[in-house]
């Protein structure tokens, strides 16, 4: 045939622009900053000691005698404990993310950059690891190693690491063969230098996004562990543990002991989720999860 006017396909409708997610980011960061400030400045303004039991004041409903959220079985002021509790859950999330990054990112870089045998070994390990549901694994490990803030954070970090390995590996594979990496390789940079200067920066968007999302998971996981009694030891005001002790009066209509710590969990997890979602849209608006 002759006379091709043009050989490309007819026009596609431009896809409507996605929102940049600035509002979600602002909301998430706002919540996080408020929680952080509230819990750090807690000693300055809280009228009750979160670790001071007062049995005669057991199960006071919210609003009685200055107990904003009421009191629990031991007469602990729930508001104080919820505010203080943020420290432990935030600390656990921080430790977990740090561990997940330290373990996951190098492995992902290595698997993605080296490929071949290294990649195969790391990928198979991932498959085996991911056959175990996260929470189940964390419960089993903590059951064996005992309880505490640090060990909880480390365990959550370890079970979160595979996600980082997988994401960083995929991203690294896509940029490995690009021109600038090739050029760097030819000009005699060592592997570590190339990774630090070229490969790692290209991964940062993915890493930040996943860090925020994993922080939300860490909060939820820490709460679940506290709830089943293998997380932070009593009587520290960890939210999951508070909910678990609070369930005792539940069927008698004492709801405030478990509802308020739960709201705190939702609020903090929501903040991290919002930040993660906004970052993912900012990092790559076309990022799609498909098979």
């Amino acid at each position: 045939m002759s006379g091709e006017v043009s050989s490309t396909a007819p026009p596609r409708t431009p896809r409507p622009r996605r929102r940049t997610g600035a509002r979600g980011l602002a909301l998430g960061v706002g919540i996080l900053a408020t929680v952080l400030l509230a819990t750090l400045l807690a000693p300055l303004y809280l009228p009750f000691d979160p670790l001071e039991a007062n049995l005669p004041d057991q199960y006071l409903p919210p609003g009685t005698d200055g107990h904003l959220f009421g009191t629990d079985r031991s007469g602990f002021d729930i508001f104080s404990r919820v505010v203080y509790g943020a420290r432990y859950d935030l600390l656990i999330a921080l430790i977990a993310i740090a561990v997940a990054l330290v373990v996951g990112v190098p492995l992902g870089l290595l698997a993605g950059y080296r490929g071949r045998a290294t990649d195969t070994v790391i990928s198979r390990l991932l498959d085996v690891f991911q056959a175990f549901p996260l929470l189940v694994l964390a419960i089993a490990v903590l059951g064996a190693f005992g309880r505490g803030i640090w060990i909880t954070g480390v365990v959550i970090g370890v079970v979160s690491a595979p996600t980082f390995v997988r994401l960083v590996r995929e991203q690294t594979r896509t940029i490995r063969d690009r021109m600038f990496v090739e050029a760097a390789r030819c000009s005699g940079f060592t592997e570590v230098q190339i990774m630090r200067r070229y490969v790692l920066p290209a991964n940062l968007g993915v890493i930040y996004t996943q860090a925020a999302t994993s922080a939300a998971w860490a909060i939820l996981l820490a709460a679940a562990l506290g709830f089943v009694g293998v997380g932070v030891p009593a009587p520290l005001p960890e939210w999951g543990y508070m909910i678990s002790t609070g369930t005792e009066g539940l069927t008698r209509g004492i709801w405030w002991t478990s509802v308020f710590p739960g709201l705190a969990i939702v609020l903090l997890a929501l903040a991290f989720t919002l930040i993660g979602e906004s970052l993912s849209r900012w990092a790559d608006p076309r990022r799609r999860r498909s098979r």
Partner: protein
Amino acid sequence: MMDSRSALLEMRDVSVTVRGAGGEVPVLREVALDVGRGELVGVVGETGAGKSFTARAVLGLLPHGARRISGSVVFDGTELDTPRAYANLRGTRMGFVPQNPRLSLDPVFTVGSQLVAVIRRGRRMSRTHARKRGVALLTGLGVHEPERVMRSYAHQLSGGLCQRVCIAIALANDPELVIADEPTTGLDVTVQRQILDLLRSQLVRDGRGGLLITHDLGVIATWCDRVAVMYAGRVVAIGPVADVLREGHPYAHGLKGIAVALEQGVEPVAIPGTVPTPGDRIEGCAFAPRCAVATDLCRADDPAPRPYGDQLVRCHHPVADAQLPAVGHPTRSEEVEV
């Protein structure tokens, strides 16, 4: 010109906009064309000229974010202004042949089940009966082993075979109008010829109308009766194929030059400049910046359609055959790639 009473399809000044980054962007601007019974009308233009939007506007299936802001589509005397008006039209009185048949047939159903569904939508009959009719249709379109084809999925068939299935689907309910959107893109030349011969014979034989959208002037010259040339969302010339390509709108003439050059194996002379993309600010005639005969009038005033012989052209200075430089020979020193 067709007598408007006997026109099967008429688009009257249809304008369509798309919601874009900077507001509403026009993609069709007062598109007017008509298709009579027993004729095949071609729509030709470069990428971005609005060909596919024209097909979609006729089908009443504009994509998300696009909307018809004015004008009307009249089919057999009925104005198609609401989704309801289209309800029993598509697949029955209005057939459609897609651009990429292998990607257009639903990959998770057999092509036979899709053909059967269309047949049964046209008239009530049992599945077995519809299947028989489907096999007969495919046989009539020169498909060998129609039973096996019916049981296959699109990915198991060649592009040409898929296109025959799509033509069978388009013709299943004896439609009065068939719209074909680049039906032969991606098919090799022999298959392309077969498909277009098939389409044309099926249409003209039974007095049906056809709208053939393509970017290939050769296809238009060989198979169409009339042609509408689109440029920047407008129909700039419409009329009998030979007339439009011979004289009238300078753009149509330029296209013809390229086509002829390619046919003769000569380096074609590209029309200088580039096509405006939707959203570009257009003052006066959209083609003026690239036009050899443009004047100040062209740059200031957008020409309304006016008769020129048997054509209707949007041009202030339609050119007669004699006035134009001979086609196929370079006339400018700077040559731009097509």
